[in-house]
């Protein structure tokens, strides 16, 4: 493909069980485009963790995915409470997720570490009281 493709998803903040729909949609689009399976898996996992985080912590937000010949870029922006201590939040096992989320099998403090692990480039900016923006890239 010579042009960039951009997709935008509004992530609803109130329905935990619907989290993953945007990631599934991106996964299907990447499959249709014939993107390599390993890159699809990385993108799907990184984005799903981000989606879950937005639902759990930020009352939803917006995800913009841009696909070009060389890179898949995901920008996850929310207007949630922000993260006070990013280095702490990046530690595997550190979590502020509520009990109901833990009982569904999430909230183990693996979200941000997984997002970093499965993307080739990971950037996070957060301002308490304003929101958080995560930018992830998977190179093709």
């Amino acid at each position, binding site marked *: 493909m010579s042009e960039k493709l951009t997709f935008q998803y509004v992530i609803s903040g109130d329905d935990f069980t619907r989290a*993953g729909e945007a990631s599934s949609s991106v996964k299907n689009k990447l499959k249709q485009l014939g993107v390599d*399976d390993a890159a699809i898996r990385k993108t799907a996992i990184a984005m799903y*963790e981000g989606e879950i985080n937005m639902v759990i912590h930020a009352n939803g937000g917006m995800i913009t995915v841009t696909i070009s010949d060389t890179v898949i870029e995901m920008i996850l922006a929310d207007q949630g409470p922000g993260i006070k201590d990013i280095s702490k939040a990046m530690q595997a096992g550190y979590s502020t997720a509520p009990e109901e989320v833990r009982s569904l*099998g999430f909230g183990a403090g693996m979200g941000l570490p997984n997002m970093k692990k499965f993307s080739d480039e990971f950037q996070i900016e957060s301002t308490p009281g304003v929101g958080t923006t995560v930018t992830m890239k998977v190179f093709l």
Partner: protein
Amino acid sequence: MELKSILTLPECTLLAQGNPDRTVSKVFCCDLLSIAMSKAPADSVWVTVMGNKNTLAVASLADVACIVLAEGVSLDEGTLAKAEEEGIAVLSTTLPVFDIALEIYEAGLS
């Protein structure tokens, strides 16, 4: 090994048949979805007691071939219909996680 050999295990109830001709890779056990998502091998048979919509989402995103719900856990009908749509098999068994994982292993999946 093809998925169809697991779909017919005697202790299991078939809830969604997925793609029976799919070649499966490994058996994988985990209940924490974030770990399952990052560690479940592609085309694996995933044994878990976590039966909710997110289980299917994780399986789908991680390219799992079959979910095996242990300890009598099930999934609601809407989620099962979605599993069928996505080509992911779902089995349910009353056996504990280790016992069913061992049976799957002994059926030819090491």
